[in-house]
């Protein structure tokens, strides 16, 4: 019997960008330039898991960045709650909830919801997430410009991890 279950979450970050501001998923040096190597949250700085980080650029100079962190220095209760960070340099919308420019921590709640917190650990919003149990090769974190592409890409045999996050 399968004991570990998983939720694969696909969530969309929509900006108020114009039609010309298509999302570009960053890779390589451009990705490394924008992703912080560590992230402050609730009293500690934890190293970023660079392999599990991603970023998208909108237009020429607007970014949404996210990554998982090594939370081994945190107390149990914080670590149970905080898994990664989300940085947006313009306001974004998650579901119907608006999130202003800023840096946030995030976690997954117990009822299949994504919780976004401020840097002090205070809950700011909680939004629904959806499962995709059809993914054969789930990854800890990947950004994609289009969900259909994403689904096809990660299920294609022998596709490299880096390729999966960099293709558009």
């Amino acid at each position, binding site marked *: 019997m399968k004991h*570990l279950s998983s939720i694969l*979450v696909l969530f969309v970050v929509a900006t108020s960008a114009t039609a010309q501001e298509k999302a570009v998923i960053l890779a390589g040096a451009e990705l490394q330039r924008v992703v912080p190597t560590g992230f402050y949250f609730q009293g500690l700085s934890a190293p970023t898991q660079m392999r599990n980080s991603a970023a998208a650029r909108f237009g020429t100079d607007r970014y949404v960045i996210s990554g998982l962190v090594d939370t081994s220095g945190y107390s149990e209760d914080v670590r149970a709650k905080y898994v990664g960070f989300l940085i947006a340099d313009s306001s974004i919308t998650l579901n119907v909830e608006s999130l202003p420019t800023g840096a946030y921590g995030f976690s997954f709640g117990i009822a299949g919801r994504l919780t976004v917190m401020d840097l002090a650990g205070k809950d700011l919003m909680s939004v629904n997430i959806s499962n995709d149990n059809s993914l054969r090769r789930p990854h800890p974190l990947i950004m994609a410009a289009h969900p259909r592409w*994403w689904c096809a890409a990660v299920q294609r045999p022998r596709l490299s991890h880096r390729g999966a996050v960099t293709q558009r």
Partner: protein
Amino acid sequence: MTFSSSRRVAVIWMALTLPLALFAQTSPKKPEPQRPMGGVSTGTPATYTSRRTANITDPNAPVVFAEITDKTPLANFRHRSGEAAKDYIFETPSGGVAIFDYDSDGRPDIYLVSGSTIAASRGKEKVPRAALYRNLGNWKFEDVTDKAGVANERWGFSVAVGDYNNDGRADMFVGNFGVSRLFRNNGDGTFTDVAEKAGVARQGWSTGATWGDYDGDGRLDLFVPGYVQIDLNNLPPNPSDVGKNGAVGQNFCQFRGVPVMCGPRGLPGEGDTLYHQKPDGTFEDVSVKSGVNDSEKYYGFSSAFVHVDDDRLLDLIVINDSTPNQLYINKGDGTFDEIGYPSGVALNENGREQAGMGLAVGDYDNDGRVDFHVTNFSDDSNTLYHNDGDTNFTDVTFQVGLGEISIPFLGWGTSFIDFDNDGWLDLFVVNGHVYPGVDEHQWGTSYAQQALLFRNIRGKFERVGAPPGNALANAWPGRGLAIGDLDGDGRVDLVINNLDAKPVLLRNVASGTGHWLGLRLVGDVAKKSPRDAIGTIAYLTAGGVRQRREVVSGAVYCSQNDMTLHFGLGGAMKIEKLEIKWSNGDLETIDVTAIDRVITITQGKGVAK
């Protein structure tokens, strides 16, 4: 999830994999809080009424192994690695063990690696020693460490055996925290450390290495994973510093809310090294050129050169702690493609990175393809990757019965072993926690832990219980593991190297076991096959079952199994077919007329008389 936007929008999708309910079967039925993603999941502060990893016995269980350590000189060996508090990560993962026939007398011998201490590393106390025990037969052993010159008075972690110079005598690479060694077997009962001269005196933290001829030139090459970069003169914070002046602002790691030593997460990892052997017997570092240098610097623990696909080229798997595992497919031009993610072995079925420790290599379901079993941290399951073919693997851990039972255990050495000779590879797993403090809490785990033996019932596994008072009822701080038929009775025995303790020698005394056949293979160097046949695959058909065995160096966990290929035959009295795919790709079908013995087969020459 739906999203709203009042205007045209730019959209991105982010996919995250979320592990849920690690204790769904074992903890009270209340919602589980989210735990960190990736790396080690350390579980919630649940209280248990039993340790779950010790003192679990079954009065109806069969007696399979008898511990006979105290009847041998192995009882005098004491592994040592750091201090009892285990404040630093390098004090916890040593050490390996090898079963191999160093003196070519037909009886496999035992080599035990020891760690060291900070004080010893600074010259302030005597350095602990490794030990070599010569097998005299009838469970008599002789400590020949000094004569052989293999005490390795350094901080030892691993041992991998390979006859790198094709002289018919098994050599040893010993991976150290510090400078590693290559012990060349001189053929007279002594070894010489030739690591510097040969160019494999690797520095840093060398873990479970593997020998293999990846480029088909007939000479063994050497792959060595690197673990973590640690400077003994600039140590990371440790739990005993909590609350001290100067400790403010430091990140201290916690296990269930209790400060513990950090790492590896947050510590800089170390790249891996591939040494290519040149015609003159020296080695060159081709890690970057070949594409296996581990530029991400994952925390490497175990590795094995092994045939993953159906071509004649040796592939390479690397098991990493708290980071994705890597699978390198040999392209045949001196380079490899890393396909850990798309192959399915990088992560578990939930897309989660695990704390990979040990690696078992074998075809557990007799479908002709090699599978992998990987041990992981406590509060997480070990993982069995089934080879589906075409370099695709599926995590079948829970489907085959290996999942839930392994969760409270922190696994190290793991090896497939047909202990009952029924023709189906069973599984033996050595366990032991890294935090001594777990014994002070009712967390459902313990520092010393029982080993796990699983019987393979046509591809499904069930735990073989431990009769009260039997060896399997004992709990040890286990690390390395090696298997081999030490007494030549056709039942595979094993040795466990325990952290800061004496080793355990387990004699297989299972009753009603099946018939068997052992193969010692000798490659033809003139045909560019390594003499010790590493990379050779044997397919044996008996009783209608076709089994696959491969000569592998390394794996297990920093350890070396005896390279004699052991086949259980069940009730079959004859070998229907024995096919050998030698390291160089040559295929041979061997006529075997006798069973219940070890035979030697030389490439192109058949069974030795």
